Structure formats: structure tokens, C-alpha cells
């Protein structure tokens, strides 16, 4: 028998899900898990209804509300904003009519769709996972092929449990060595985007590899895969290993017993074969990465916290220079200004990038015994009700509240300015979210992306700050 050609993690999952290949090379790809939320589904369910179609696999579908909901106590007495309420009620009507499992707003398992999928044990290695949300790439940290889709494709998956897809190219980003003092998964992914650019991964699926990736806990791996889309890649993935399996063992709905044993047999075959072909290879030295912060209005406009605002006059390319000038103007900056001198108005710790228990622990470790600077609004928004419960069991909420942070209910919150949590024009925010686009956190808002520990340090300092000045060296 001829030996099979070495394959990547992506190739193996892809091959296992091709239902049929059409003459032009497009594959009909089977989808194992379809996560849905209130914003990108109403028009899809309408389409099904109009065509008299049903949801093919309700058992492979899960719905939750996260984007447009309030993250304060007001959620207990009903949704105030009439449009948000209509969107949530529409989802509730649709899931009832089509028999889709649903986690309601006041359920303790409610949370950001990309936090709860893995947390509940629904997102597993080897799966194809989609959601009408670009940060679906997050689930790739489980060793799954997970990517965001539009609403027409949501309808397509609801009706057929498949998608028409062209195979992507393989990219491997190897982060070798050990992370330096004060650095985290967020700094790794920001440094990667700074290196390859916001379109560097377009047309590719990224596999993250190397010792620094293997050393990350699951929370860190979710953070890295989450922002693959900010590098232009629809999906990012990390091969499953013991860290992954230990995580699954702690989830309520992960397979157990005989089913788990069979699943493990398949999962262990998933890592890329030696000699598998990658169309693009990128290597980074983990130790050379310093704590990162974005200064502009796309995630590749990123620098070490010790840096200064770049000078467009030094940029030879006219188009790039014009873009830099626009970013500097929007962000209210001056070339040559030290990033550490930038005063912040708001600090947001949350989002599908950084709202897991490990992220909250990191923020609390900085906040402990300190105070949020005068005039700064600092908020911590756990990614799910279960994360919130765990944090409260560990007393992290108390530490944060004593330091002057707001402790809120789970949701997307200030990541995207479509719920009551948003910036007002001109406000500067240190944010653990994933996008620093113009107006992303509210019209005229200015976003600096950074890690949870860096965000907590900014809250205490009242300006962007180097987390290394806040951490006891011996503790690391």
C-alpha cells in the first residue's frame, strides 16, 4: 500500500468532512456544530420559513444571546432597548419554532458564544464549527476547524448542515522559545498580527505551533486563535494535546466513557504529520516579544509598550503614509509621543478574546491592593455566567470591586458598541478586546488593544502602562 501523503491538521479535518467534491473543486463540507446568536440569525430563520424548510440537525445547533444585551442588573427586569428586545425575542421565537437548543439570558450558562461553546464541552477536537460571527476562529484552539460565516451561510447550514467551500491554503506560525516576563498569549497574537499584517492570513488557515504555543493554557490558546481573523485568516487552529484533553475532561458535555475512548483514538491522529506541506511558514522568537499595545485603528498598528507613536514622515509609501496620518488624527496622537504617556478614560476587560477565568485572575493579580486611578472607568465583564461564578468563588470579584473596578454580567459588552456599554466620542480606552477599528467601541471612541494584565495596569496608572512595573519578578 502506498504511504499516504503527509497532511496538516487542517487537511485531516477537511478531508474527514467532505460530503462531495463538485467538478470545479468546491467541496460540500459537513458542519458538526453550528453556534448561533441573536444578531446574525433572524434573517436566516426568515429564509427557512419562507421556503418551508426545517433545521436539519437541531442537536448540532446551539443558540445563545450575547451581543446586544446589557451587562448590568437591568437584564433581570427585561431588556430596555426596544430593538434589542425585539432581536432577542425573535431568537426565542425562532428557536422554539425550529426546536433549536437555547441558553436564555438569565441562565447561569449564558455567555459569549465563543466562551461557552468550549466551556460546555460542545466544541471538540476534529470538529467543523461555524457561527455567524468572525471570531468563531476561537474554537480552533480545541484542534477544530472553526470559522465565521455570513447570514446566508447560516441559513445554508441550518437547512443542509453543510457549506460550499473552497479549500484554504495552509500557514504555520511557529512561536519558539519561552515568553519573557510580563508577556501573555495576547502579546503573542498582537505581535503576530504586527508581523504579518491584517491581510497576512487571507485565504489561509493558520496553525499555531512551537513551544510557546504548546506551553499556553487553553485560555491563552483561545486568545491566540480568536484574533486569527484580525490577521485575515478565517480560521486559526492548535493541535490537540494533553492540555486540550484535560480541559475537555472538566466540561459538562464533553464525551465520557466509551465515547471518549473512541474520540481520543481519532483526536490523537489529528496533529500535522511530519513533512506536511505548508504554503506559508512564519517563525517568531517568543522571548523577543514585549508587552504589546495598539496605537492605530487596525490591529497591525501595534508596538511594544515602551514604544512611541510612529512618524508618518518616515514612511516612504504614500498610501501607507496617508493611512498613518489618518489613524494618528483619529486617535488624537502626536508622532513621537510615548505610548506610556497616553491617559485613558475607560478600561475594558472582557470580550471573546480575554474574558475567561485565567484572564480575570491576571487582572485581579494586578488590581489586588491597588486603586483604579481617579477619573478612570474600569469594567470587568466575565465571558459567561460560569466564569463569573468561578471568579466569585475565588473572591476575585471582591478584589476587583475593592480596587474600584465594575464587576458585571456576562456578554460582549464594550467590545462592539451595540449594547449599552460604549465609549463616547474622544474617549480613550485600554481594551482587552480584538478590534481597534474607528468607532468600534462607540462612535469617535479610541481603542488600544492589550492583555488583561496590561489593561489592569492601565486602570491603576490612569494611562497606558508597562505591566512589568507592576509585577513582582520573583512571582514569575
Amino acid at each position, binding site marked *: 500500500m502506498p504511504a499516504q501523503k503527509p497532511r496538516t491538521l487542517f487537511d485531516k479535518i477537511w478531508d474527514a468532512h467532505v460530503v462531495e467534491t463538485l467538478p470545479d473543486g468546491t467541496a460540500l463540507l459537513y458542519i458538526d456544530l453550528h453556534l448561533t446568536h441573536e444578531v446574525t440569525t433572524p434573517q436566516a430563520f*426568515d429564509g427557512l420559513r419562507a421556503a418551508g424548510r426545517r433545521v436539519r440537525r437541531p442537536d448540532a445547533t446551539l443558540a445563545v444571546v450575547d451581543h446586544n444585551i446589557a451587562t448590568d442588573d437591568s437584564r433581570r427586569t427585561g431588556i430596555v432597548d426596544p430593538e434589542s428586545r425585539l432581536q432577542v425575542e425573535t431568537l426565542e421565537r425562532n428557536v422554539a419554532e425550529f426546536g433549536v437548543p437555547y441558553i436564555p439570558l438569565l441562565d447561569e450558562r449564558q455567555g459569549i458564544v465563543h466562551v461557552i461553546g468550549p466551556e460546555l464541552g460542545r466544541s471538540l477536537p476534529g470538529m467543523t464549527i461555524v457561527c455567524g460571527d468572525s471570531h468563531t476562529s476561537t474554537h480552533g484552539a480545541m484542534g477544530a476547524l472553526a470559522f465565521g460565516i455570513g447570514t*446566508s451561510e447560516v441559513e445554508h447550514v441550518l437547512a443542509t448542515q453543510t457549506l460550499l467551500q473552497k479549500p484554504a491554503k495552509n500557514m504555520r506560525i511557529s512561536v519558539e522559545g519561552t515568553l519573557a516576563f510580563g508577556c501573555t498569549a495576547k502579546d503573542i497574537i498582537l505581535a503576530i498580527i504586527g508581523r504579518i499584517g491584517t491581510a497576512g492570513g487571507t485565504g489561509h488557515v493558520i496553525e499555531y505551533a512551537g513551544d510557546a504555543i504548546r506551553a499556553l493554557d487553553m485560555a491563552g490558546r483561545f486568545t491566540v486563535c480568536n484574533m486569527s481573523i484580525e490577521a485575515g485568516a478565517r480560521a486559526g487552529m492548535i493541535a490537540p494535546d494533553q492540555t486540550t484533553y484535560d480541559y475537555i475532561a472538566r466540561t459538562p458535555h464533553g464525551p465520557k466513557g466509551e465515547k471518549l475512548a473512541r474520540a481520543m483514538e481519532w483526536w490523537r491522529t489529528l496533529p500535522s504529520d511530519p513533512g506536511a506541506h505548508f504554503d506559508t511558514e512564519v517563525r517568531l522568537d517568543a522571548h523577543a516579544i514585549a508587552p504589546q499595545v495598539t496605537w492605530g485603528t487596525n490591529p497591525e498598528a501595534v508596538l511594544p509598550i515602551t514604544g512611541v507613536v510612529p512618524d508618518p514622515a518616515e514612511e516612504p509609501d504614500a498610501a501607507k503614509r496617508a493611512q498613518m496620518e489618518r489613524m494618528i488624527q483619529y486617535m488624537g496622537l502626536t508622532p513621537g509621543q510615548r505610548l506610556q504617556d497616553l491617559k485613558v478614560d475607560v478600561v475594558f476587560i472582557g470580550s471573546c478574546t480575554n474574558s475567561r477565568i485565567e484572564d480575570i485572575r491576571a487582572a485581579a493579580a494586578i488590581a489586588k491592593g491597588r486603586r483604579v486611578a481617579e477619573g478612570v472607568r474600569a469594567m470587568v465583564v466575565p465571558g459567561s455566567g460560569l466564569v463569573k461564578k468561578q471568579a466569585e468563588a475565588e473572591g476575585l470579584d471582591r478584589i476587583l470591586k475593592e480596587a474600584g473596578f465594575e464587576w458585571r454580567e456576562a456578554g460582549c459588552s464594550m467590545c462592539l458598541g451595540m449594547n449599552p456599554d460604549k465609549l463616547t466620542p474622544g474617549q480613550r480606552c485600554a481594551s482587552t478586546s480584538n478590534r481597534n477599528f474607528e468607532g468600534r467601541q462607540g*462612535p469617535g471612541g479610541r481603542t488600544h488593544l492589550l492583555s488583561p494584565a496590561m489593561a489592569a495596569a492601565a486602570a491603576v496608572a490612569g494611562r497606558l502602562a508597562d505591566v512589568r512595573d507592576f509585577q513582582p519578578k520573583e512571582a514569575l
Partner: protein
Amino acid sequence: MQAFTKLTGIAAPLPRANVDTDQIIPARFLKSISRQGFGKYLFANFRYREDGSENPDFVLNQEPWRHAEILIAFENFGCGSSREHAPWALLDFGIRCVIAPDFADIFHNNCFKNGILPVKLPREVCEKLMEDARLGANARITVDLEREVVVRPNGEEIPFQVDPLRRHLLLNGLDDIGQTLQHAAAIDAFEAKQRAAQPWLYA
């Protein structure tokens, strides 16, 4: 879905790279449960001032470009969120074709599902078309999907390429769910095999 065959119209110049979906339609306007009516929010943060009045400096508020059916932009158009509200807003405004050096993957996909043709052309060509677009109503651009050419106002034809399956669906205005359901037997067979091999994936 409305078919796209050939379009001759006014093209609006938007000489920016990395036009993200939060620029195309900010998240606060995503609360509608309909596909219609997003046109008034297209590029809302650029088109309107804080008091809600039109910003006369933005191209889509100027004659003749407020009647544009084609948009010319630079690299990585449509990056960011998967929101299909972005193509819905373009379509509702009247834009059926976007020409740029490249597009973000999800946005690119979403266009085809809504009868919008995204055309990839090299940066230098986009710069020429940007100059044409700046001439306004007297410089209409033609986009012919049948022949896969863009025709400049001076008659110069620029070839482009679109994935054959997508071209077929767009030319005929076909709904791909209907196409996929022709493979229902293959999907049934796949599920039966997967259920036996990977029972943990089934309730």
C-alpha cells in the same frame, strides 16, 4: 437573489485600504431583524455628523456619487466582522459591484450571496479606475460578468476572473440552498457513516 450580468454606472472613489465592516455599517445599526433598510446606515460614521446631518465632505453625499452603483477602493476591503449587514447596506444603497485589489474572505463570500459582484484587480488598475471614478457622471464604468471584463470610460477593457461556480450562481441569480439540497442523498449517507464512526457528535 437578483442576478448580476452586466452593469454600467457611476463609480464612487473610496481611496482607502482596510475598509472594515464596522466602517461599512457600525454595530449599533445591526439590531434590525430584516434584510432591508440598511442603506441609510451605510458608512454612517463618515456620512453623518454627530448631530445627524449629512457630512458634505464624504463622497457618497456628493453629486453624482450619491447615485453610485460601483465602489472603487484599495486593499483588504471588508475586513473584520462576518456581518452580512455590510453587503445588505451596500445593496440597499444601490451598490452592486465593489472593485478593489483584494477582499477579506468572509465579506467576499457574503457579496456573492446577495447579488453583489466583488472584482479583484491589481492596485495600479484600481488607481486608474479611481481616477475615472473621480470624473463622475461623465465617466461611467461597465462591469460585464458574462465576458469577465471591466470597461473603462475610454473604452479600454480590463479582464478579471471570478470563481466559475460563483459566476454561474450570480449570472443566474440562483439560491445555493436549492443547489445543495440536490445532494441530499449524499448528505444522508455522510451522516450515517459519521454517526457510526463518531457517535459523540450525535445527541
